[in-house]
C-alpha cells in the first residue's frame, strides 16, 4: 500500500522521491507573471513593486525553513551565521530550484554584507524588463524568500535583489540544470542577492567566537 494520494494536500510532508515535489516550470512562470501583474497594478513606484514581491516571498521563506527542518534527518538548528547562509544557498536553493546557488561571497567593503549569486534565477527566466522600469529586478521574490528563511532562523537581515550584467567570458561554472532547460539563448545577466545583517546578529555571532 504505497500508492500516493492524488490530492497534494493529502500527501505526507516527508518527500519520498525527488520527483514528487516538482512543479512544471511553465505553470510557475505563468503564475509568477500573474503575481507580478497583480502587484504592478496596485503600486505607484518601482521600489514599492519590489517591496511587495519581497513580502510575497517572505512567507514562503518562513514555511520553507519549517518544512526543510522537518524533512532533514537530524533536527538541528543553525546558530552560526555562515552555516545559516550555507543552508540557504545549498539546501533551500536545491529544494526550491533543483540546484545550489552559484556562489556565496562576503562583501569586501562591508563586514555585515554577503552576496548570493545565481546565474539562472528562476523568477526572471522569461522576463524582459522594459527600459522605463529602470533598475527593477523581478527576482525580488527570491530575495524575500531568503529574508524569510534567515529571519525565521533568528538572523534578521535586509535582502535585496540586483540584476548585474555579466562580464566578458563570465558564465555559470555548474553544468546547466536539467530542470531549467529552455531553448533560449544564454543569459546576459546574473542575479545578486545582497544580504545585510542587523548589527545585533553580527554582535551575537562575534560573541560566539570568544
Amino acid at each position, binding site marked *: 500500500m504505497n500508492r500516493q494520494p492524488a490530492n497534494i494536500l493529502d500527501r505526507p510532508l516527508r518527500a519520498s522521491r525527488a520527483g514528487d515535489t516538482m512543479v512544471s516550470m511553465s505553470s510557475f512562470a*505563468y503564475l*509568477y*507573471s500573474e503575481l507580478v*501583474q497583480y502587484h*504592478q497594478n496596485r503600486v505607484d513606484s518601482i521600489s514599492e513593486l519590489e517591496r511587495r514581491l519581497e513580502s510575497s516571498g517572505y512567507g514562503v521563506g518562513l514555511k520553507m525553513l519549517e518544512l526543510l527542518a522537518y524533512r532533514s534527518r537530524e533536527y538541528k538548528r543553525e546558530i552560526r551565521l555562515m552555516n545559516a547562509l550555507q543552508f540557504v544557498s545549498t539546501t533551500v536553493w536545491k529544494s526550491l530550484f533543483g540546484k545550489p546557488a552559484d556562489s556565496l561571497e562576503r562583501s569586501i567593503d562591508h563586514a555585515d554584507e554577503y552576496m548570493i549569486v545565481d546565474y539562472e534565477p528562476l523568477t526572471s527566466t522569461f522576463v*524582459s*524588463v522594459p527600459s522605463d522600469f529602470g533598475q527593477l529586478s*523581478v527576482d525580488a521574490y527570491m530575495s524575500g524568500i531568503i529574508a524569510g528563511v534567515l529571519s525565521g532562523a533568528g538572523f534578521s537581515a535586509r535582502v535585496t535583489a540586483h540584476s548585474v550584467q555579466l562580464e566578458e567570458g563570465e558564465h555559470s561554472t555548474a553544468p546547466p540544470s536539467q530542470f531549467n532547460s529552455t*531553448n533560449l*539563448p544564454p543569459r546576459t545577466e546574473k542575479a545578486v542577492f545582497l544580504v545585510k545583517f542587523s548589527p545585533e546578529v553580527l554582535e551575537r555571532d562575534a560573541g560566539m567566537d570568544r
Partner: protein
Amino acid sequence: MVFLHLFIVNKSGGLIHHRALSPKAPQIGTNEWLRIGSTFHSLYAIANEASPMKLSQNKNVSGADDGIEEIQADGLVLRCLQTRTGIKFVVTAEPGTSDIDQVLREIYILYTDCALKDPFYELEMPIRCELFTTSVDALIRTMERSARLGIR
C-alpha cells in the same frame, strides 16, 4: 537560402511585431509594415471565406485553418502559421529555403515563452520583449548554420 522577414499579426489584424531576419531583406518602413500586416490579415480572411469547402482535417468550426498557408513568387516564399488564438506568424524567405515550417513553430514556442510568460507584456499589444528578439535572432542563426552544414 535566406530568411528575410518575420511579422506577427494579432487576431484583429494589427501588426504586433516585425523584424528583418537578414541584411538582404528589403528596407521597409514601419508604416508600410502596418499596412502589409493588415492587408495580409484581410486576404487571409477572404481566402478563408472563398474556400469552396472545408478541409477534411479541419476540426475548427470557425474555419481558421483554411486561410493562406503559402504564397510563392519568383523572388520570395511567404509562409504563414495561424494559431488557435488567431495570431498569425508570417515568415518570408528566398525561394528554395527549407524548414520554414519548423522556424514558424519554433517562433511560436518562443512567443509563448518570452512574451506570454513576461509579466510586462500585454496581450494583443506590440511585442517589445528584448528576450524575444534575441531568441529569434539566435534561432535564425542556428537554422542557417545547420542548413549550410547540411549542403556540404
